[in-house]
């Protein structure tokens, strides 16, 4: 989308205002990848006549996020056009679900659970340590753009808490779980991320 064009009504929606400040805006999408197209073709017949377009809204949004890293107004327009939905509907869906990033996250997305099972085992100490070391608040990205830190709700690994999950921008499909975290283990994880790698040896 060229910068000089006036914004459409949807693009003026508060959820998408931040888009202008997002680094990497030049990557604004032109089209969905052939992989997404193939997946649409594969899934389309699994839904009843006339329902597939809407039913595919979640899967395609997620795949588009894998392709572009986040979902902004331009991605919404692409998804809506491909599935025959209104941009309003797709925006409604995209803003409802927690896993859709409205802005581009860091290279690594570190998600720390602080819910009850993890809280009892010291998750807030782990989370505070992450905040301090990265110099960010919840949902913030470190100054070098390397790590985005998010406090998340239960990851269904309560017996092995505190638990964190790391998603890597280049490999969004396989986030790793890191269990039984304490100061030492989270330090090792943060060190590895700073070196530019996910410490798979610590995960499972």
């Amino acid at each position: 989308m060229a910068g000089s064009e006036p914004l459409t009504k949807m693009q003026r929606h508060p959820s998408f205002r931040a888009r202008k400040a997002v680094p990497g805006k030049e990557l604004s999408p032109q089209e969905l990848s052939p992989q997404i197209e193939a997946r649409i073709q594969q899934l389309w017949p699994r839904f009843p006549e006339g329902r597939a377009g809407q039913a595919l809204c979640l899967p395609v949004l997620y795949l588009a996020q894998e392709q572009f890293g986040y979902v902004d107004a331009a991605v919404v327009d692409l998804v809506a056009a491909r599935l025959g939905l209104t941009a309003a509907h797709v925006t409604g869906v995209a803003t409802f679900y927690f896993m859709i990033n409205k802005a581009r996250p860091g290279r690594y997305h570190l998600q720390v659970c602080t819910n009850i099972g993890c809280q009892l085992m010291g998750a807030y100490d782990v989370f505070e340590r992450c905040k301090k070391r990265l110099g960010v608040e919840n949902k913030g990205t470190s100054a070098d753009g390397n790590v985005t830190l998010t406090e998340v709700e239960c990851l269904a690994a309560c017996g092995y808490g505190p638990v964190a999950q790391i998603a890597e921008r280049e490999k969004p499909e396989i986030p790793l779980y890191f269990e039984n975290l304490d100061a030492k283990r989270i330090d090792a994880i943060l060190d590895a991320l700073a070196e530019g790698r996910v410490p798979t040896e610590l995960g499972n």
Partner: protein
Amino acid sequence: MGLFDVKIISEHFGVPEAKGLEYYERKGGYRNARKACGMAPESIAAEVQASNLRGRGGAGFPTAMKWSFVPKDADTVYLVVNADESEPGTFKDRHILFWNPHMLVEGMIIASVALKVRNAYIYIRGEMAREYQVLQAAIDEAYAKGYLGERIFGSGTSLDITVYRGLGAYICGEETALLSSLEGGRGWPRLKPPFPAVKGLWGKPTIVNNVETIANLPWILEHGGKAFADLGTGRSGGLRLVSVCGHVNKPGVYELPLTVTGRQLIDEVCGGIKGGRKVKGVIPGGVSMPVLAPDELDVPFEFDALQKDERIREVEVRPGQKFDLGGNRTLRTMAGSGGVVVMDDTTDITQAAWRIVHFFAEESCGQCTPCREGTGWLAQVAHRIAFDHGRAGDVDLLASIADGIAGNTICALGDAAAWPTLAFLTKYRDEFEAKVRNAHRPKGAA
């Protein structure tokens, strides 16, 4: 065999090759799916009826009864497996999906024959990326073998199973919200009735069952409904997966008889409380459920017992005034999702209570005002009590907000926030009051 030796679902947990079709079939897998394809739907339903199988997702509703609500003349029926496990404290379905995906697929084939389903869906939590890959691989294997797709096992039955990934919303574990999400919209719950069994996915009759519920079906068909009922107690058949977290020596997922009490679970199954400390409170079925105090742990963790046993105190709105569950019923607690949270005597109950209501405030879908506004207010008040800024009257305020939410919303999320709040206040009121009394106050304040 000892009390804890019988296993239906968890026998192969931890065996890496158990994920594969070859291993599963070598252990007798898919035999019962094949058998089901040659059976009359009614006779499968009759076995399930005889088994006393109750839904393992939270409500404990009898599975056969749920199935019986599908109109007999329905032209299209959908089966949806609820794999959106996100109730804090619960991590049992994740184990089934990861270690035993074929058992779920086989159970789905059996249920689909019984319900005359052509298209079935599995709605899996978005965060469970690994489990999704394992499950999808298992389904692909089953397709390659002709166990799914057109004319499965060479019979007249055809079945497609599609895995649908959620995108991170606790509310989508509620069955009508799940259907809204699966249709490609926001995960907003719908009013019941009509129940999904009558009017569900795209307006068609739809059965939504939990992963563990469905995974029990192959065993039921193999050994007969009666054998399953005999494993259980009273009106509840079979065994149950229980996930235990918190301050125990051996947290994890265990498949146990329904007669096991809270105390046995902690001491005999989970090796006692960490560091030899004492138990302070136990949440028996995910954080939506009222907490149990140490003197209430000799009750079996079974659906009916947890609701009715008089050794468990009734939840109160304020001292002496019992909480009204509607229809003159009182609330003790419930078996819920089998997620057991154990808290030892070093736990600050007010902080645990705050974290729980904070969760519900985060996850409220926003449709109903009492829940949208109420959960946020609960979290705010609970936070200031827990972190030493409580004000006079806050404890009663908390109870009054919770009582105002309960029963006044479309789905159970409002209740799920209100019930534990009231239970914490009923059983640990002194602690909340002490926190308020000792709160840091600005100079000059009362």
